[in-house]
Structure formats: C-alpha cells, structure tokens
C-alpha cells in the first residue's frame, strides 16, 4: 500500500476475550480512505468480533481504534454511529413492524446528521430508490424477502451519512443475479466516497470488490494484502479454504 495514502481507521493491539476464549488477539491493521477493505477468515475467526469492538457492541479488553485520528474505543454505540461509522448485521436486523420507509428514516433522524421526520421521509425515499426498493416503501419490514431486508438495512446504514461503512456478510445468501446487483451497489457506494469494510465469504465478491484484505484465523491476523496475494498464501489456504479445495 502506498505510504502517503490517507488512513481512515487505524486498529492497534485490539484484544477481546470471552472467558477463556480469545476472540480477538492483539489485532492491528490500517484501513485506507476511499477503499473497499475485506475482512476474511473461517467461521469463528473473530471477524464479527472486530466489527462489534469498533462499533462498541462489545467493550474491548485492550487496544486502540483511531477513526480519523481520534480514539473511538470507549465511546458508546450511538456515539460511534454519530461520528460517521455505520454498520449492518450478520443476521439481518430490521424493525419488523415498521415500514420500509420508517426503517430508513431511523438512520436519517438519529445518525450523524439528525433530521426532522419530514426531512427524513424525503431522503429515505431517495435512498430506497437507490437500493431498488422504491415500490415497497409502505410495506412492513417483516413482510419483505431476505434480500429486500438486506437492502433496507444497507439503506438505513447509508441514511446515517457514514464515512465508513461496515458490512457484515451483506452478500451472504444471495442468488447469482442478486449477487451481481449487490456487488454493483457496493461498488457504487465506494464511488461516492464512502470507505467500506466488508466481512465476506463470497470469493467472487472479494475478488471483484476488495482493494485490500486482512485474513483472520482463531482471533489472529494471519495475512494481509491484495485479494490475489492473500488468497494464494499457503497459510490462508490451509486455514480458510482447506488445502484440497484450494488446489481444485
């Protein structure tokens, strides 16, 4: 990575243990501004834990997370959101008995640039159009299909006006057509200047989107670099893909 590239998020020595299980063991890496950054690794390797530590869903045991040069460890989740870091959830989370529009309004009304309900309504409709949900604004979120729920989760995150967007397996469970639409959408969001961290298992998406990847295994960083270089790293192949699959 070029040295003069601007760093938006800098993680140093991040550690979290749940009892005897160390879910994140002294993890350090830098996320350059304006890029798509992949966080990959097998199940249980600590990827979601890292996201939860950044967004204060869990309190870290030690370490430091600098966002635009300022320490954000110790903030509460709502403060992290207001400081322009938005996220989606591994198991999609929507407000089930509220409409699609209201789900997106939530982000606009309380995110980094809080707005009145009427203002939020207008912008929610624009965002819904952007994620291809314009016709479903008045449906209840619980009635939506899985992909549509993921779309409004993304629209809600964008409504908070983030500089940094954390996607936790946002592309998981999509069929090939939906996957292409999803990859397109993420790439357009980056085009608008939002830095993206994505936890992902879909190799096609990682290759297509990520500029840079960090690979975690058992709570530790085992590799870092471009998708091509980390995916051909022998240790990564062994830990993540399984040697046989990698050969095939």
């Amino acid at each position, binding site marked *: 990575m070029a040295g003069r590239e601007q760093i938006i998020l800098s993680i140093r020595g991040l550690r979290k243990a749940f009892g005897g299980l160390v879910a994140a063991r002294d993890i350090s890496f830098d996320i350059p501004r304006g890029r798509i950054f992949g966080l990959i690794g097998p199940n249980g390797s600590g990827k979601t834990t890292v996201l939860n530590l950044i*967004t204060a*869903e869990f309190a870290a045991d030690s370490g430091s997370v600098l966002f635009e040069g300022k320490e954000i460890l110790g903030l*509460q*989740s*709502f403060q*992290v*959101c*207001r400081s322009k870091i*938005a*996220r989606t*959830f591994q198991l999609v*989370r*929507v*407000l*089930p*008995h*509220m409409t699609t529009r*209201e789900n997106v*309004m*939530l*982000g606009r*009304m*309380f*995110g*980094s640039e*809080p707005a*009145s*309900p009427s203002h939020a309504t207008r912008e929610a409709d624009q965002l819904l159009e952007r994620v291809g949900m314009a016709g479903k604004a008045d449906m209840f979120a619980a009635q939506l299909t899985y992909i549509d729920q993921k779309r409004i989760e993304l629209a*809600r995150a964008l409504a*908070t006006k983030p500089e940094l967007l954390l996607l936790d397996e946002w592309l998981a469970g999509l069929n090939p057509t939906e996957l292409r639409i999803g990859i397109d959408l993420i790439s357009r969001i980056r085009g608008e200047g939002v830095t993206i961290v994505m936890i992902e298992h879909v190799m096609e998406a990682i290759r297509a989107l990520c500029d840079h990847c960090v690979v975690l295994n058992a709570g530790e960083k085992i590799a870092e670099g471009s998708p091509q270089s980390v995916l051909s790293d022998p240790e990564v192949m062994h830990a993540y893909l399984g040697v046989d699959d990698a050969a095939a």
Partner: protein
Amino acid sequence: MALGAIILALLPMYASNYVISIFIVLFANVALATAWAFFSGATRYISLATASFFGIGIYVLAIAHVYVPVPVALAAAAIVGFLVAAVVGLSTLRLRGVYFVVFTFGLTELIHQIINWWEINVNKTTSRYIFTDVPNVNIYETLLVIALITIVGSWYVSKIRLGFALRAIGEDETVARHSGINTTRVKVLCFALSASVMSLVGAVLALRYPYIDASIAFNNSWSFQVLIAALLGGAGRAWGPAVGAVPLVLLSDLLAGSFPHHFSIALGLCFVVIVYFLPGGVTRLILRLYHAWWAEQTKTRTH
C-alpha cells in the same frame, strides 16, 4: 374530541355524586393506562411498577399536605415520582423481557416494605390521616385535565423524534443503538415521565382517602389493571388505553357490589381474550372495521 372534553368538563353540574365518583376512577385509570402505554407500549419494556409510582404519589401527598398547600404537594408528588423512576430506570432498564417484568413487580413490594419499616420504626405509626377539604368536583376536573394532557402529550410525542426513538427501541434496541439513538437517555427519560404522571394521579386520588397505609398505597392490582386496560384498548396508539379503561372500570364497579373478589378473574379472562383474539387491542379492531366500511363505501360510489 374537544366537544367530548367540554361535555365532560360540564358534567359535574348535572350529574349525581355517584356518577362523579365513577368518572373520577375512570379518569385516573385512563391517565394511568395512557402513561403506562406511553413507555411500555412503545418500548415493550413491560412494567409492573405502576403501583410503585402510584403509591409514591399517595405517600408524598399524605406527608406533604400537612406542611404545604395541596397544589404544591401534587407537584412534589410528580417530581418525586420522576426522580425515583429515573434512578430505578438507570439501574434496571438494561434488563430485558421477563427480567424487567419481574423486577418491576418486585419493586412495588420492596417500596411497600421499606415504607412499612420506616413508618413503624421511625415514625411509630402504621397509617397516616389525610386532612383536606378538596371537593369531589375539583378532583374530577383535575383528573380530567391530567387524563387529557396525558393523551394529547402521548399523541404529540408519537409524532416527533422522541416517539420514533421509543418505537425503534421496542422494535430492535440493538439497531436503535447503532443508528445513533442514545437509548439509555430515551428510556430513562420516558420511563420517568410516565412515572411522574402515575405519581400525580396517585396524589390526586389520595385527596379522597381519609387515611392511608402502605398496603393501600402499594397495591399490585393497580399495576395489572392498568396494564390490561392499556392492552385491551391497544397500547400502540395514544387513545387506545383510554378506550380500554372504560369497560374495565365499569366492570370493576359492577362487580364491586355483589362479587368484590371476582374482579381479578375478569381481568384474567380479559388478558386471555387480548392475547388470543385482540393482539392490537380494541382500537385496532375498530380501525380495521372502519377501513373495511370505508372501502365498501368508496366501492359502491364508483360503481
């Protein structure tokens, strides 16, 4: 609604004392159920602490009315209710689901026992007399105003950001938190606002009691009656609990004469009916029927 309020405000000029008494109880229940739903209906933190705050209001009035004018004692009740709820809320609103329900249920008993201990050991008494000469009509009008303000206030909050935040917390608190809502502040503030109305209502009703003791003030049946009134009417809209309170108060009055101990059975049956047949309360049913009727009307008109 304004017309209804005017009619109710003028009613004491024509109605008998018995009718006034029933309306006093009704307004108290409407205010309590609306205040309960304001917090618990939106956030789904089901509170059984209504009797706690109601009882605190009674006690604050009983203690304060000796030293200060009644209006000041009423204001003090609302403030103390707010403060106690804020402290309780800060320490317990991290509990979710049944843990919160059980805690709030236990809270009434806890306060009941503390006051009992304090009265017996410090004040060497078990009960207090309330000496006021506030006429029933004034109590009636005061509770009418409190009930109306609670309903209008609850409706107003549901239209602004704070109400939206409350609903979002009820839907998915994690999402609310990660979307920029200071969930602790919203919960504690609204829990305390709701509690201050409950304390105020308790204090106003206490004006009618000749004397009180801890078991009169901290009676858990208030918590259940208010909860069921709110659910029966529909805790999701500001005017729902008021609709639910009417049949319950009338039923309670009807049963009081001949079957004084059977009201809790009626409450239980009510609860079963709500859970199985009326998940959104009577008001959702009314709205649904109304929409169906309206659709029918427009259909016949276009043909």
